[in-house]
């Protein structure tokens, strides 16, 4: 059973359960009908007030404070706060009032980044096969290790999944954002047929749009026939889905670039090994490249032109406007004979991108916002912005540095991983004794001054005073 089908069934069941409750409710009320009408009204009012209060209580506030904050949008804050309400980012800033009851993660002296996005992985949700819905395990140690290495979202079999520890709801973020096309030079017939489909579909789309215009005046005009047009390619041309290719060779890449330029779509190219040799064409096509900077293949001896891998591939492509996502060569959590190449080495691989000339920021984008875009979930994850999911990681330094460890991982405004509480890495450079170790507490909130006219006039002054008087209190809280 597909995951979304499973969800649908579950929803149906939930809806059915709700319906039953609704049916049952009148019977409950019926018993009270004999009571005084006035009393009943009062009771209703009281219920309403209680309900409102409950609603407020149900809002879950979460904040990371005093962070050295890297939002992923180019902005960096010092001593910053990220405030989330029910898992969504409500505010980002340096002076943010925290509502009463906010769970506060004090990240003083630590660096906060958006959770990393692995473009593609295997086995984080247990020994999941390609159809992960049958075997999804959100208690899997692999998932915890991935969180411990900063990954909070991953692609798997084309779907975008959130690393929600111990929960199933909300794991599936998007079913499918891309569709794989075969444009292999090894398969000239398939290539020819794909070209034909593009031509036919593009013609159909043009005819259809012309028909839509003309129809305004001539209602009886016949809708153009679909003929040889292809439903998937139609989606691509309409920008509803991204066309994905797996290609490394210069000639193929050039073909894809030209195809994309001709029909006006942005190709996602996995591999893109020789992309650096035709970066300009790929840039003009608005391509996305999913690369492994450490990839190494010598150029074919038959090839006269430049070819093979280049450590500078990612940097050259990006300089020509190609958006870069970075993946390690291994997709699972696995060190069989080799370390530093599996999915946990996402930042290591990005580091090799920097080695080849990418900036640190561009390398971080390549493991956050760009893969989020390719998975169709960049409106929710990949950077820290108001309205997006509160998925972030608290690190003891530059996330790209090999000694840096994720101290805490937060998904949907909930701490789901704490280094010092898991066996995996707790013994390595523990921060328990450090004054800078992150701590979680529940904040009592700041007392709001009474809204009298006088208070309103001196509002700014009051705020300042408040902060002054607040600070010692906060320190005391910490000691507790």
């Amino acid at each position: 059973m597909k995951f979304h089908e499973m969800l649908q069934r579950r929803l149906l069941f939930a809806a059915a359960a709700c319906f039953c409750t609704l049916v049952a409710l009148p019977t409950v009320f019926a018993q009270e009908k004999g009571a005084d009408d006035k009393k009943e009204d009062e009771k209703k009012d009281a219920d309403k007030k209680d309900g409102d209060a409950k609603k407020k209580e149900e809002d879950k506030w979460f904040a990371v404070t005093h962070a050295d904050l890297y939002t992923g949008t180019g902005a960096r804050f010092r001593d910053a706060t990220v405030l989330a309400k029910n898992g969504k980012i409500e505010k980002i800033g340096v002076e943010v009032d925290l509502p009463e009851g906010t769970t506060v993660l004090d990240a003083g002296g630590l660096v906060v980044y958006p959770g990393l996005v692995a473009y593609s992985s295997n086995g984080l949700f247990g020994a999941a096969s390609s159809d992960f819905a049958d075997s999804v395990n959100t208690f899997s140690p692999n998932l915890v290790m991935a969180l411990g290495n900063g990954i909070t979202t991953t692609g798997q079999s084309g779907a975008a999944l959130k690393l929600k520890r111990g929960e199933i709801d909300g794991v599936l973020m998007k079913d499918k954002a891309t569709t794989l096309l075969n444009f292999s030079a090894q398969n000239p017939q398939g290539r020819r047929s794909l070209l034909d489909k593009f031509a036919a579909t593009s013609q159909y789309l043009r005819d259809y749009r012309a028909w839509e215009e003309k129809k305004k005046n001539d209602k009886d005009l016949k809708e153009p026939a679909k003929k040889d047009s292809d439903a998937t390619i139609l989606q691509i041309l309409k920008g509803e889905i991204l066309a994905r290719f797996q290609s490394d060779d210069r000639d193929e890449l050039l073909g894809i670039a030209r195809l994309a330029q001709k029909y006006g779509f942005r190709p996602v190219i996995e591999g893109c090994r020789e992309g650096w040799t035709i970066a300009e064409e790929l840039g003009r096509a608005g391509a996305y490249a999913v690369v492994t900077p450490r990839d190494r293949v010598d150029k074919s001896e038959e090839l006269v032109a430049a070819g093979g891998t280049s450590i500078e591939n990612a940097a050259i492509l990006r300089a020509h406007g190609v958006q870069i996502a970075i993946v390690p060569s291994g997709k699972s959590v696995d060190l069989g004979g080799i370390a530093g190449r599996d999915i946990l080495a996402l930042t290591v691989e990005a580091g090799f991108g920097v080695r080849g000339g990418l900036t640190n920021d561009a390398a971080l984008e390549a493991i956050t916002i760009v893969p989020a875009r390719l998975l169709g979930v960049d409106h929710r994850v990949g950077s820290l912005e108001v309205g997006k999911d509160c998925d972030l990681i608290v690190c003891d330094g530059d996330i790209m540095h090999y000694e840096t460890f994720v101290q805490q991982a937060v998904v949907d405004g909930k701490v789901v991983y704490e280094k010092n509480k898991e066996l995996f890495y707790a013994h390595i450079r523990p921060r328990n004794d450090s004054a800078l170790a992150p701590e979680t507490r529940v904040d009592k909130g700041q007392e709001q001054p009474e809204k009298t006219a006088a208070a309103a006039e001196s509002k700014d002054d009051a705020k300042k005073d408040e902060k002054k008087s607040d600070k010692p209190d906060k320190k005391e809280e910490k000691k507790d």
Partner: protein
Amino acid sequence: MLKRLLIAALALTTTTAHAQTGEAPKAGERGAPGLAIRTAKALTAKWEGECVIDHALVLVKDGKIQAIGPVSTLAVPEGFEVVDVGDMWLMPGMVDLHSHVGGTFDINDMVYVTQPELKVHASVIPHNPMFKRAIASGVTSVLYIPGSGVNSGGQGILIKTGLDNYEDAVIRDPGSLKVAQWGNPERWTVGVGKSWENYHLRDMFQRGKNYAEAWDKYEKGEGTQPEKRIELEVFRDLYGHRTQVSTHTQVYQVVLETLTMIRQEFGIDVYIDHGEVKGYLTAPLAEKLGVNAILGPRNVDMPRLFGMDTDGQWQGIAAEYQKRGMKKIGFNTDSPVIPQEELQLQVGIAGRYGFDMSNTEGVKGLTIVPAMTAGIADRVGSLEPKKDADIVVISGDPGDPRTHVSMVFINGKRVYDTEVDKRRW
């Protein structure tokens, strides 16, 4: 056919002639004017004492380091060409003691369980394409060794990566006698286990010891001249302390055999090579016996790996050796299992999982430790006077994958320069 051969022969002669006459040697090379390299920071990897010099100057003459020190204390001699590398750092060329990319891959003959007479030097291709990429990551010397398909695959060779001629490139032959303990040789014919493998190793060492002793006696004027047996010749080098045994040894049980059999029982210079898994449990004994540990390429144990008990932790191999008192810890790749150019990543992995590198132990593990371990520290492994001018110009911490190499000198010869060459790595 004959004509084609003739042309080929002619071409060969021309090439050789060209290589021999070549261009005039450049500053720093043998027989040329001196070279002075100025840098913001030199990681000298000197084993004892201060090993970082800020604002350093290195003087190179005739392929050797003439002097190194702070710019303030050292003057550039007249006639020296000056290269200022700005804020790039200098470090010694890296040394990898477990490499298989020195030439062709026919280096894993599995005829006998122990075949100490086989010499890998027959397969060497100097300055081959894999070496070229290795140079671009700062690896200047490697121990090119036979595979681990049998308990002793033969003799390795210590060779420099960036020199065109075999005679120039070779540092020492035999570079080591390769021994592989349990973990790989089970592939041999019927499939064998630890007891059988250890029996055969012990048998080989005993024969070797008898042979070396017989020759030793004869050379001292006692006894008759022994019959020359090429399969045991290497033991004369081993007992003369001119080479070592490099042991591919991993799990606790057989690392213990490396120490107790090869070092204690037979008194041979030996080191732990390709160190992985739980061999670190032997660290206190190894340190006592002066057996160094060269670790990698899987420099970390993850929980559940091979069912090994890690108490649910990720354990850095280097960190565990260090924690138990091992002083000389180096790194290797087992290239091409890990590509030769990724040697430096081993340091990053060690550092990540708890290896304390507060006194540049990472840099030393790539340079002076393997050099001392292989007994070639008189020539390579640190930036010190009289040593070979194998110098790497690097953008920072070699353990960080973001760091890149921009220039490499071997024997004072500039073998890689990103200003001139295409960026190779």
